Protein backbone atom coordinates (compact mmCIF):
# COMPACT_ATOMS: atom_id res chain seq x y z
CA UNK A 1 0.00 0.00 0.00
CA UNK A 2 1.41 3.38 -0.99
CA UNK A 3 1.74 6.21 1.49
CA UNK A 4 -0.67 8.37 -0.51
CA UNK A 5 -3.35 5.72 -0.03
CA UNK A 6 -2.62 5.50 3.68
CA UNK A 7 -2.90 9.26 4.11
CA UNK A 8 -6.09 9.27 2.09
CA UNK A 9 -7.74 7.34 4.96
CA UNK A 10 -7.09 10.08 7.48
CA UNK A 11 -9.26 12.92 8.65
CA UNK A 12 -7.90 16.40 9.30
CA UNK A 13 -9.35 19.74 10.14
CA UNK A 14 -7.02 21.94 8.15
CA UNK A 15 -5.93 25.35 9.31
CA UNK A 16 -5.23 27.97 6.67
CA UNK A 17 -1.94 28.81 8.27
CA UNK A 18 0.99 26.41 8.48
CA UNK A 19 2.16 25.24 11.89
CA UNK A 20 5.55 24.35 10.45
CA UNK A 21 8.34 26.59 9.20
CA UNK A 22 11.95 26.04 8.17
CA UNK A 23 13.94 28.68 10.01
CA UNK A 24 17.15 28.38 7.99
CA UNK A 25 16.67 26.90 4.48
CA UNK A 26 20.35 27.37 3.66
CA UNK A 27 21.25 24.83 6.34
CA UNK A 28 19.01 22.22 4.67
CA UNK A 29 20.54 22.99 1.29
CA UNK A 30 24.19 22.96 2.28
CA UNK A 31 25.15 21.50 5.61
CA UNK A 32 22.35 18.98 6.04
CA UNK A 33 22.42 17.93 2.40
CA UNK A 34 26.10 17.14 2.63
CA UNK A 35 26.30 15.63 6.10
CA UNK A 36 22.95 13.96 6.72
CA UNK A 37 21.17 13.75 3.39
CA UNK A 38 18.16 15.64 4.81
CA UNK A 39 16.67 12.87 6.97
CA UNK A 40 13.35 14.72 7.45
CA UNK A 41 12.54 13.68 3.89
CA UNK A 42 12.76 10.03 4.93
CA UNK A 43 11.84 9.70 8.62
CA UNK A 44 8.65 11.78 8.42
CA UNK A 45 5.83 9.20 8.38
CA UNK A 46 3.55 11.48 6.36
CA UNK A 47 6.15 12.85 3.92
CA UNK A 48 5.59 16.41 5.01
CA UNK A 49 9.12 17.36 3.93
CA UNK A 50 10.22 17.07 0.33
CA UNK A 51 13.43 18.26 -1.22
CA UNK A 52 12.91 20.44 -4.27
CA UNK A 53 16.18 20.27 -6.20
CA UNK A 54 15.13 22.99 -8.68
CA UNK A 55 14.36 25.47 -5.94
CA UNK A 56 17.11 24.20 -3.68
CA UNK A 57 14.90 24.07 -0.63
CA UNK A 58 12.67 21.83 1.48
CA UNK A 59 8.99 22.12 0.60
CA UNK A 60 6.69 21.67 3.60
CA UNK A 61 3.32 19.98 3.06
CA UNK A 62 1.96 20.85 6.49
CA UNK A 63 -1.52 19.57 5.57
CA UNK A 64 -0.13 16.01 5.66
CA UNK A 65 1.23 16.34 9.20
CA UNK A 66 -0.02 13.70 11.65
CA UNK A 67 1.62 15.47 14.60
CA UNK A 68 3.95 12.66 15.64
CA UNK A 69 6.53 15.36 16.61
CA UNK A 70 9.49 13.31 15.35
CA UNK A 71 10.83 16.25 13.31
CA UNK A 72 11.18 18.32 16.49
CA UNK A 73 13.90 15.91 17.48
CA UNK A 74 15.06 14.36 14.21
CA UNK A 75 16.19 17.50 12.39
CA UNK A 76 19.96 17.39 12.94
CA UNK A 77 20.21 21.20 12.97
CA UNK A 78 16.90 21.94 14.65
CA UNK A 79 15.83 24.30 11.90
CA UNK A 80 12.29 22.93 11.78
CA UNK A 81 10.05 25.23 13.76
CA UNK A 82 7.14 22.93 14.51
CA UNK A 83 4.32 24.19 16.69
CA UNK A 84 1.14 22.59 17.88
CA UNK A 85 -1.72 23.30 15.47
CA UNK A 86 -4.30 25.63 16.94
CA UNK A 87 -6.90 24.01 19.20
CA UNK A 88 -9.22 21.67 17.31
CA UNK A 89 -7.17 21.80 14.10
CA UNK A 90 -4.94 19.14 12.59
CA UNK A 91 -5.22 15.36 12.63
CA UNK A 92 -8.33 13.79 14.15
CA UNK A 93 -7.83 10.07 14.60
CA UNK A 94 -10.93 7.91 14.60
CA UNK A 95 -9.16 4.81 15.93
CA UNK A 96 -5.75 5.97 17.15
Amino acid at each position, binding site marked *: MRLEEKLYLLRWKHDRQSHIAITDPATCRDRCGKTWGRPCTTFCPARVYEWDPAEGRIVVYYENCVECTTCLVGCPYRVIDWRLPRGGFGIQYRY*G
Partner: protein
Amino acid sequence: MSTEKFDAIVVGAGPAGAAAAITMAQAGLSVVLLERGEYPGAKNVMGGVMYGRMVADVVPEFWKLDAPLERVVVEERVWITTEEGVVSLGYRNPRQAYHPDGCPNAFTVLRARWDRWFAARAEEAGAILVPQTVAEDVIWQDDRIVGVRTGREEGDLYADVVVIADGVNSFLAQRARLRDHPVAPHHLALAVKEVIGLPPEIIESRFNLEPGQGVTIELYGAVTDGMSGYGFLYTNRDSLSVGVGVLVSHLMRTRRTPYELLERLKQHPAVRPLLTGGEVLEYAAHAIPEGGYEAMPRLFGNGVLIAGDAAMMVNGLHREGSNLAMAAGRLAGETVIEAKRRGDFSARTLALYEAKLRESFVLQDLVKYRHLPELADRRPDLFRIYPHLVHDAVHEMLTVDGLPKRAKQRRIWQEITRRRRPLQLLRDLYEIWRAVR
Protein backbone atom coordinates in the same frame (compact mmCIF):
# COMPACT_ATOMS: atom_id res chain seq x y z
CA MET B 1 -10.52 38.17 31.46
CA SER B 2 -11.87 35.43 33.64
CA THR B 3 -10.45 35.64 37.12
CA GLU B 4 -12.02 32.44 38.37
CA LYS B 5 -9.38 30.31 39.98
CA PHE B 6 -9.39 26.51 40.04
CA ASP B 7 -7.69 24.09 42.35
CA ALA B 8 -5.97 22.43 39.41
CA ILE B 9 -5.55 22.67 35.66
CA VAL B 10 -4.63 19.45 33.90
CA VAL B 11 -3.11 19.81 30.44
CA GLY B 12 -3.84 16.83 28.22
CA ALA B 13 -6.75 14.37 28.42
CA GLY B 14 -4.75 11.19 27.86
CA PRO B 15 -4.26 8.41 30.43
CA ALA B 16 -2.06 10.51 32.74
CA GLY B 17 -4.14 13.68 32.60
CA ALA B 18 -7.51 11.96 32.89
CA ALA B 19 -6.29 9.82 35.82
CA ALA B 20 -5.09 12.96 37.62
CA ALA B 21 -8.35 14.79 36.88
CA ILE B 22 -10.52 11.89 38.05
CA THR B 23 -8.54 11.55 41.29
CA MET B 24 -8.76 15.23 42.14
CA ALA B 25 -12.37 15.76 41.04
CA GLN B 26 -13.49 12.76 43.09
CA ALA B 27 -11.97 14.42 46.15
CA GLY B 28 -14.04 17.51 45.48
CA LEU B 29 -11.36 19.71 43.95
CA SER B 30 -12.26 22.05 41.11
CA VAL B 31 -10.47 20.79 38.03
CA VAL B 32 -10.15 21.92 34.42
CA LEU B 33 -8.99 19.30 31.93
CA LEU B 34 -7.60 20.82 28.72
CA GLU B 35 -7.42 18.84 25.46
CA ARG B 36 -6.10 20.20 22.18
CA GLY B 37 -7.91 17.66 19.98
CA GLU B 38 -11.49 17.86 18.83
CA TYR B 39 -12.15 15.22 21.50
CA PRO B 40 -9.90 13.30 23.92
CA GLY B 41 -7.97 10.70 21.94
CA ALA B 42 -8.15 12.57 18.63
CA LYS B 43 -4.37 13.09 18.74
CA ASN B 44 -3.41 9.93 20.56
CA VAL B 45 -1.92 6.74 19.23
CA MET B 46 -0.70 3.63 21.00
CA GLY B 47 0.07 0.08 19.92
CA GLY B 48 -2.92 -0.71 21.95
CA VAL B 49 -2.33 -2.48 25.28
CA MET B 50 -3.94 -0.96 28.38
CA TYR B 51 -3.54 -2.35 31.90
CA GLY B 52 -6.58 -2.96 34.08
CA ARG B 53 -5.09 -2.56 37.53
CA MET B 54 -4.11 1.07 36.96
CA VAL B 55 -7.48 1.86 35.39
CA ALA B 56 -9.29 0.27 38.33
CA ASP B 57 -7.22 2.35 40.75
CA VAL B 58 -9.10 5.42 39.48
CA VAL B 59 -12.31 3.89 38.09
CA PRO B 60 -13.16 0.93 40.35
CA GLU B 61 -14.72 -2.06 38.58
CA PHE B 62 -14.54 -0.28 35.24
CA TRP B 63 -14.93 -3.65 33.48
CA LYS B 64 -18.53 -3.76 34.66
CA LEU B 65 -19.20 -0.41 33.01
CA ASP B 66 -19.45 0.34 29.30
CA ALA B 67 -15.67 0.78 28.89
CA PRO B 68 -14.57 0.34 25.25
CA LEU B 69 -12.24 -2.61 25.79
CA GLU B 70 -11.42 -4.32 22.51
CA ARG B 71 -10.17 -7.73 23.71
CA VAL B 72 -8.79 -9.08 26.97
CA VAL B 73 -5.27 -10.38 26.40
CA VAL B 74 -5.16 -14.12 27.08
CA GLU B 75 -1.99 -14.87 25.17
CA GLU B 76 1.26 -12.97 24.66
CA ARG B 77 3.74 -14.00 22.02
CA VAL B 78 7.25 -12.86 21.26
CA TRP B 79 8.44 -13.53 17.74
CA ILE B 80 12.14 -13.47 17.00
CA THR B 81 12.22 -12.91 13.28
CA THR B 82 14.62 -13.34 10.42
CA GLU B 83 13.70 -12.28 6.88
CA GLU B 84 11.58 -15.41 6.42
CA GLY B 85 11.44 -17.28 9.69
CA VAL B 86 10.18 -16.91 13.22
CA VAL B 87 11.18 -18.40 16.54
CA SER B 88 8.08 -18.02 18.68
CA LEU B 89 7.76 -17.86 22.45
CA GLY B 90 4.40 -17.53 24.07
CA TYR B 91 2.34 -17.65 27.21
CA ARG B 92 -1.34 -18.47 27.21
CA ASN B 93 -3.69 -18.88 30.12
CA PRO B 94 -7.17 -17.44 29.64
CA ARG B 95 -8.17 -18.01 33.27
CA GLN B 96 -5.21 -16.01 34.59
CA ALA B 97 -5.95 -13.13 32.25
CA TYR B 98 -7.90 -11.64 35.16
CA HIS B 99 -6.89 -10.54 38.64
CA PRO B 100 -8.72 -12.32 41.50
CA ASP B 101 -11.27 -9.48 41.71
CA GLY B 102 -12.22 -9.94 38.05
CA CYS B 103 -10.19 -7.03 36.75
CA PRO B 104 -8.61 -7.85 33.39
CA ASN B 105 -4.81 -7.72 33.56
CA ALA B 106 -4.24 -6.39 30.07
CA PHE B 107 -6.57 -5.55 27.23
CA THR B 108 -6.37 -3.90 23.84
CA VAL B 109 -7.90 -0.51 23.11
CA LEU B 110 -8.18 2.00 20.30
CA ARG B 111 -7.15 5.25 21.86
CA ALA B 112 -9.59 7.56 20.07
CA ARG B 113 -12.39 5.57 21.70
CA TRP B 114 -10.73 4.71 24.99
CA ASP B 115 -9.50 8.20 25.83
CA ARG B 116 -12.89 9.68 25.17
CA TRP B 117 -14.46 7.21 27.56
CA PHE B 118 -11.77 7.67 30.20
CA ALA B 119 -11.95 11.47 30.06
CA ALA B 120 -15.73 11.24 30.37
CA ARG B 121 -15.15 9.60 33.77
CA ALA B 122 -13.30 12.76 34.80
CA GLU B 123 -16.27 14.85 33.69
CA GLU B 124 -18.58 12.53 35.59
CA ALA B 125 -16.49 13.13 38.71
CA GLY B 126 -16.94 16.87 38.24
CA ALA B 127 -13.95 17.99 36.18
CA ILE B 128 -14.57 20.49 33.40
CA LEU B 129 -13.32 19.12 30.09
CA VAL B 130 -12.33 21.82 27.61
CA PRO B 131 -11.45 20.31 24.21
CA GLN B 132 -10.02 22.05 21.13
CA THR B 133 -7.80 24.12 23.39
CA VAL B 134 -4.02 24.34 23.29
CA ALA B 135 -2.14 25.28 26.45
CA GLU B 136 0.49 27.51 24.91
CA ASP B 137 2.36 28.62 27.98
CA VAL B 138 2.35 28.60 31.74
CA ILE B 139 1.71 31.79 33.70
CA TRP B 140 4.37 32.72 36.22
CA GLN B 141 4.03 34.82 39.32
CA ASP B 142 7.54 35.32 40.66
CA ASP B 143 8.95 31.78 40.79
CA ARG B 144 5.58 30.04 40.96
CA ILE B 145 3.35 28.71 38.22
CA VAL B 146 -0.15 30.02 38.76
CA GLY B 147 -1.95 29.05 35.57
CA VAL B 148 -1.79 28.43 31.83
CA ARG B 149 -2.22 30.62 28.79
CA THR B 150 -4.48 28.92 26.28
CA GLY B 151 -4.84 29.70 22.60
CA ARG B 152 -8.35 30.99 23.17
CA GLU B 153 -9.40 34.62 23.37
CA GLU B 154 -9.11 35.80 26.96
CA GLY B 155 -7.85 32.32 27.57
CA ASP B 156 -5.80 32.71 30.73
CA LEU B 157 -6.72 30.17 33.37
CA TYR B 158 -5.54 30.26 36.97
CA ALA B 159 -5.07 27.47 39.49
CA ASP B 160 -3.04 26.47 42.52
CA VAL B 161 -1.42 23.66 40.56
CA VAL B 162 -0.86 22.83 36.89
CA VAL B 163 -0.51 19.14 36.08
CA ILE B 164 1.36 18.80 32.79
CA ALA B 165 0.33 15.71 30.84
CA ASP B 166 0.61 17.02 27.30
CA GLY B 167 2.40 13.99 25.96
CA VAL B 168 5.68 13.19 24.25
CA ASN B 169 7.89 16.18 23.40
CA SER B 170 6.01 18.22 25.95
CA PHE B 171 6.09 21.88 25.05
CA LEU B 172 4.95 22.88 28.51
CA ALA B 173 7.75 20.96 30.26
CA GLN B 174 10.21 23.42 28.81
CA ARG B 175 8.00 26.45 29.42
CA ALA B 176 7.63 25.34 33.05
CA ARG B 177 11.43 24.96 33.30
CA LEU B 178 11.19 21.30 34.20
CA ARG B 179 13.29 20.40 31.17
CA ASP B 180 16.27 22.43 29.97
CA HIS B 181 16.98 20.66 26.69
CA PRO B 182 14.73 19.20 24.02
CA VAL B 183 14.51 15.40 23.87
CA ALA B 184 17.46 13.76 22.03
CA PRO B 185 16.90 11.63 18.89
CA HIS B 186 18.16 8.48 20.62
CA HIS B 187 15.62 9.03 23.39
CA LEU B 188 12.69 8.91 21.01
CA ALA B 189 11.20 6.15 18.89
CA LEU B 190 8.86 6.68 16.00
CA ALA B 191 6.08 4.13 15.70
CA VAL B 192 3.79 3.76 12.72
CA LYS B 193 0.78 1.51 12.67
CA GLU B 194 -2.31 0.52 10.80
CA VAL B 195 -5.69 -0.54 12.04
CA ILE B 196 -6.85 -3.32 9.74
CA GLY B 197 -10.50 -4.31 9.79
CA LEU B 198 -11.47 -7.99 9.89
CA PRO B 199 -14.67 -9.73 11.06
CA PRO B 200 -14.46 -10.93 14.70
CA GLU B 201 -15.00 -14.59 13.73
CA ILE B 202 -12.04 -14.51 11.38
CA ILE B 203 -9.83 -12.96 14.04
CA GLU B 204 -10.96 -15.59 16.52
CA SER B 205 -10.27 -18.50 14.22
CA ARG B 206 -6.94 -17.12 13.00
CA PHE B 207 -5.65 -16.48 16.51
CA ASN B 208 -7.30 -19.39 18.29
CA LEU B 209 -9.56 -17.22 20.46
CA GLU B 210 -12.98 -17.21 22.05
CA PRO B 211 -15.07 -14.06 21.59
CA GLY B 212 -13.68 -11.26 23.73
CA GLN B 213 -10.23 -12.86 24.03
CA GLY B 214 -7.16 -11.30 22.47
CA VAL B 215 -3.54 -11.93 21.58
CA THR B 216 -0.49 -9.69 21.54
CA ILE B 217 2.56 -10.39 19.41
CA GLU B 218 5.80 -8.45 19.66
CA LEU B 219 8.22 -8.99 16.79
CA TYR B 220 11.95 -8.55 17.20
CA GLY B 221 14.77 -8.94 14.72
CA ALA B 222 14.58 -8.59 10.95
CA VAL B 223 11.35 -6.60 11.05
CA THR B 224 13.23 -3.50 12.24
CA ASP B 225 15.85 -3.91 9.52
CA GLY B 226 18.92 -3.37 11.67
CA MET B 227 17.47 -0.61 13.80
CA SER B 228 16.63 -0.84 17.50
CA GLY B 229 12.94 -1.33 18.10
CA TYR B 230 10.20 -3.87 17.53
CA GLY B 231 7.07 -4.59 15.62
CA PHE B 232 3.70 -5.47 17.09
CA LEU B 233 0.45 -7.12 16.16
CA TYR B 234 -2.51 -6.86 18.51
CA THR B 235 -6.05 -8.12 18.14
CA ASN B 236 -8.98 -5.75 18.57
CA ARG B 237 -12.64 -6.74 18.47
CA ASP B 238 -13.07 -6.37 14.73
CA SER B 239 -9.65 -5.16 13.68
CA LEU B 240 -5.94 -5.76 14.09
CA SER B 241 -3.38 -3.16 15.13
CA VAL B 242 -0.12 -3.79 13.33
CA GLY B 243 2.89 -1.54 13.52
CA VAL B 244 6.57 -1.03 14.09
CA GLY B 245 8.63 1.42 16.13
CA VAL B 246 12.33 2.23 15.89
CA LEU B 247 14.67 4.81 17.38
CA VAL B 248 14.66 8.17 15.62
CA SER B 249 18.48 8.29 15.81
CA HIS B 250 18.58 5.09 13.72
CA LEU B 251 16.01 6.36 11.22
CA MET B 252 18.17 9.46 10.75
CA ARG B 253 21.27 7.38 10.13
CA THR B 254 19.79 4.67 7.89
CA ARG B 255 17.42 6.99 6.03
CA ARG B 256 14.83 4.24 5.93
CA THR B 257 11.23 5.36 5.74
CA PRO B 258 8.85 4.22 8.48
CA TYR B 259 5.99 3.41 6.11
CA GLU B 260 8.19 1.11 4.02
CA LEU B 261 9.29 -0.59 7.21
CA LEU B 262 5.63 -1.18 8.05
CA GLU B 263 4.87 -2.52 4.56
CA ARG B 264 7.83 -4.87 4.92
CA LEU B 265 6.55 -6.11 8.27
CA LYS B 266 3.10 -6.71 6.78
CA GLN B 267 4.70 -8.79 4.04
CA HIS B 268 6.67 -11.00 6.43
CA PRO B 269 5.72 -14.61 5.66
CA ALA B 270 4.53 -15.16 9.23
CA VAL B 271 2.49 -11.95 9.35
CA ARG B 272 0.93 -11.77 5.90
CA PRO B 273 -1.49 -14.69 6.33
CA LEU B 274 -2.83 -13.13 9.53
CA LEU B 275 -3.77 -9.95 7.68
CA THR B 276 -5.24 -11.55 4.55
CA GLY B 277 -8.57 -10.09 3.48
CA GLY B 278 -8.28 -7.20 5.92
CA GLU B 279 -9.15 -3.65 5.02
CA VAL B 280 -6.86 -0.87 6.19
CA LEU B 281 -9.04 1.51 8.18
CA GLU B 282 -6.47 3.97 9.46
CA TYR B 283 -2.77 4.75 9.31
CA ALA B 284 -1.20 6.47 12.30
CA ALA B 285 2.17 7.61 13.58
CA HIS B 286 3.35 8.75 16.96
CA ALA B 287 6.59 9.31 18.81
CA ILE B 288 7.35 7.27 21.91
CA PRO B 289 9.61 8.63 24.66
CA GLU B 290 12.20 5.88 25.15
CA GLY B 291 14.92 7.75 27.03
CA GLY B 292 13.96 6.26 30.38
CA TYR B 293 15.08 7.44 33.78
CA GLU B 294 18.20 9.28 32.63
CA ALA B 295 16.18 11.43 30.23
CA MET B 296 13.36 12.38 32.58
CA PRO B 297 12.59 16.01 33.33
CA ARG B 298 12.31 17.32 36.87
CA LEU B 299 8.97 16.00 38.08
CA PHE B 300 7.73 18.93 40.15
CA GLY B 301 8.21 22.62 40.78
CA ASN B 302 6.37 25.44 42.50
CA GLY B 303 2.76 24.91 41.47
CA VAL B 304 3.51 22.27 38.85
CA LEU B 305 3.71 18.48 38.36
CA ILE B 306 4.38 16.45 35.24
CA ALA B 307 3.21 12.92 34.34
CA GLY B 308 3.04 10.35 31.55
CA ASP B 309 4.80 10.60 28.18
CA ALA B 310 5.57 14.25 28.94
CA ALA B 311 7.77 12.92 31.76
CA MET B 312 9.32 10.00 29.75
CA MET B 313 7.35 7.43 31.71
CA VAL B 314 7.70 4.52 29.32
CA ASN B 315 9.13 1.08 29.96
CA GLY B 316 10.06 0.07 26.42
CA LEU B 317 11.29 -3.41 27.22
CA HIS B 318 7.91 -4.38 28.64
CA ARG B 319 5.94 -2.25 26.12
CA GLU B 320 4.40 -0.48 29.11
CA GLY B 321 3.48 3.19 29.16
CA SER B 322 -0.22 3.79 29.63
CA ASN B 323 -0.06 2.08 33.02
CA LEU B 324 2.87 4.21 34.18
CA ALA B 325 0.99 7.27 32.95
CA MET B 326 -2.21 6.39 34.84
CA ALA B 327 -0.36 5.52 38.05
CA ALA B 328 1.64 8.75 37.86
CA GLY B 329 -1.47 10.77 37.08
CA ARG B 330 -3.24 9.31 40.10
CA LEU B 331 -0.24 9.99 42.36
CA ALA B 332 -0.05 13.55 41.02
CA GLY B 333 -3.72 13.96 41.87
CA GLU B 334 -3.21 12.58 45.39
CA THR B 335 -0.29 14.94 45.88
CA VAL B 336 -2.39 17.95 44.90
CA ILE B 337 -5.12 16.83 47.30
CA GLU B 338 -2.54 16.70 50.10
CA ALA B 339 -1.12 20.08 49.07
CA LYS B 340 -4.56 21.61 49.27
CA ARG B 341 -5.03 20.15 52.74
CA ARG B 342 -1.76 21.74 53.81
CA GLY B 343 -2.48 24.94 51.92
CA ASP B 344 0.98 24.81 50.38
CA PHE B 345 1.53 24.31 46.64
CA SER B 346 5.23 25.02 46.61
CA ALA B 347 7.85 22.51 45.49
CA ARG B 348 8.40 21.63 49.13
CA THR B 349 5.01 19.94 49.38
CA LEU B 350 4.78 18.84 45.76
CA ALA B 351 8.06 16.91 46.24
CA LEU B 352 5.75 14.35 47.80
CA TYR B 353 4.85 13.37 44.21
CA GLU B 354 8.35 12.17 43.45
CA ALA B 355 8.52 10.33 46.77
CA LYS B 356 5.28 8.53 45.88
CA LEU B 357 6.62 7.65 42.44
CA ARG B 358 9.80 6.24 43.97
CA GLU B 359 7.73 3.98 46.19
CA SER B 360 5.69 2.76 43.22
CA PHE B 361 6.62 0.56 40.28
CA VAL B 362 6.77 3.66 38.09
CA LEU B 363 10.17 4.96 39.14
CA GLN B 364 11.43 1.61 40.41
CA ASP B 365 11.04 0.08 36.95
CA LEU B 366 12.44 3.13 35.19
CA VAL B 367 15.47 3.07 37.50
CA LYS B 368 15.89 -0.68 36.94
CA TYR B 369 16.18 -0.22 33.17
CA ARG B 370 18.02 3.10 33.26
CA HIS B 371 20.95 1.77 31.17
CA LEU B 372 18.84 0.09 28.50
CA PRO B 373 18.15 3.12 26.26
CA GLU B 374 21.87 3.80 25.91
CA LEU B 375 22.50 0.17 24.95
CA ALA B 376 19.64 0.15 22.44
CA ASP B 377 21.03 3.22 20.74
CA ARG B 378 24.64 2.04 20.69
CA ARG B 379 24.05 -1.60 19.72
CA PRO B 380 21.38 -1.95 17.04
CA ASP B 381 23.51 -4.85 15.80
CA LEU B 382 22.22 -6.94 18.72
CA PHE B 383 18.80 -6.82 17.07
CA ARG B 384 20.33 -8.29 13.93
CA ILE B 385 22.93 -10.79 15.13
CA TYR B 386 21.11 -12.69 17.84
CA PRO B 387 17.77 -13.32 16.15
CA HIS B 388 19.74 -14.94 13.32
CA LEU B 389 21.81 -17.08 15.68
CA VAL B 390 18.73 -18.24 17.60
CA HIS B 391 16.89 -18.93 14.37
CA ASP B 392 19.76 -20.92 12.85
CA ALA B 393 20.30 -22.94 16.03
CA VAL B 394 16.62 -23.91 16.23
CA HIS B 395 16.56 -24.68 12.53
CA GLU B 396 19.55 -26.99 12.88
CA MET B 397 18.04 -28.89 15.81
CA LEU B 398 14.71 -29.33 14.03
CA THR B 399 16.17 -30.46 10.71
CA VAL B 400 16.17 -34.25 10.65
CA ASP B 401 18.92 -35.17 8.23
CA GLY B 402 20.63 -38.15 9.83
CA LEU B 403 23.23 -36.08 11.64
CA PRO B 404 23.53 -37.07 15.34
CA LYS B 405 22.38 -34.41 17.82
CA ARG B 406 25.83 -34.03 19.38
CA ALA B 407 27.25 -33.21 15.97
CA LYS B 408 24.44 -30.71 15.47
CA GLN B 409 25.27 -29.03 18.75
CA ARG B 410 28.89 -28.83 17.66
CA ARG B 411 27.88 -27.35 14.33
CA ILE B 412 25.66 -24.76 16.03
CA TRP B 413 28.45 -23.73 18.38
CA GLN B 414 30.89 -23.48 15.49
CA GLU B 415 28.46 -21.32 13.57
CA ILE B 416 27.86 -19.07 16.58
CA THR B 417 31.56 -18.62 17.29
CA ARG B 418 32.26 -18.04 13.61
CA ARG B 419 29.95 -15.05 13.67
CA ARG B 420 30.62 -13.94 17.21
CA ARG B 421 33.88 -14.82 18.98
CA PRO B 422 33.42 -16.23 22.52
CA LEU B 423 34.85 -13.06 24.05
CA GLN B 424 32.41 -10.88 22.09
CA LEU B 425 29.58 -13.19 23.11
CA LEU B 426 30.49 -12.80 26.74
CA ARG B 427 30.77 -9.05 26.41
CA ASP B 428 27.36 -8.82 24.70
CA LEU B 429 25.74 -10.98 27.35
CA TYR B 430 27.33 -8.92 30.11
CA GLU B 431 26.14 -5.68 28.52
CA ILE B 432 22.60 -6.96 28.15
CA TRP B 433 22.55 -8.34 31.67
CA ARG B 434 23.86 -5.06 33.08
CA ALA B 435 21.13 -3.13 31.29
CA VAL B 436 18.20 -5.24 32.48
CA ARG B 437 19.26 -6.75 35.81
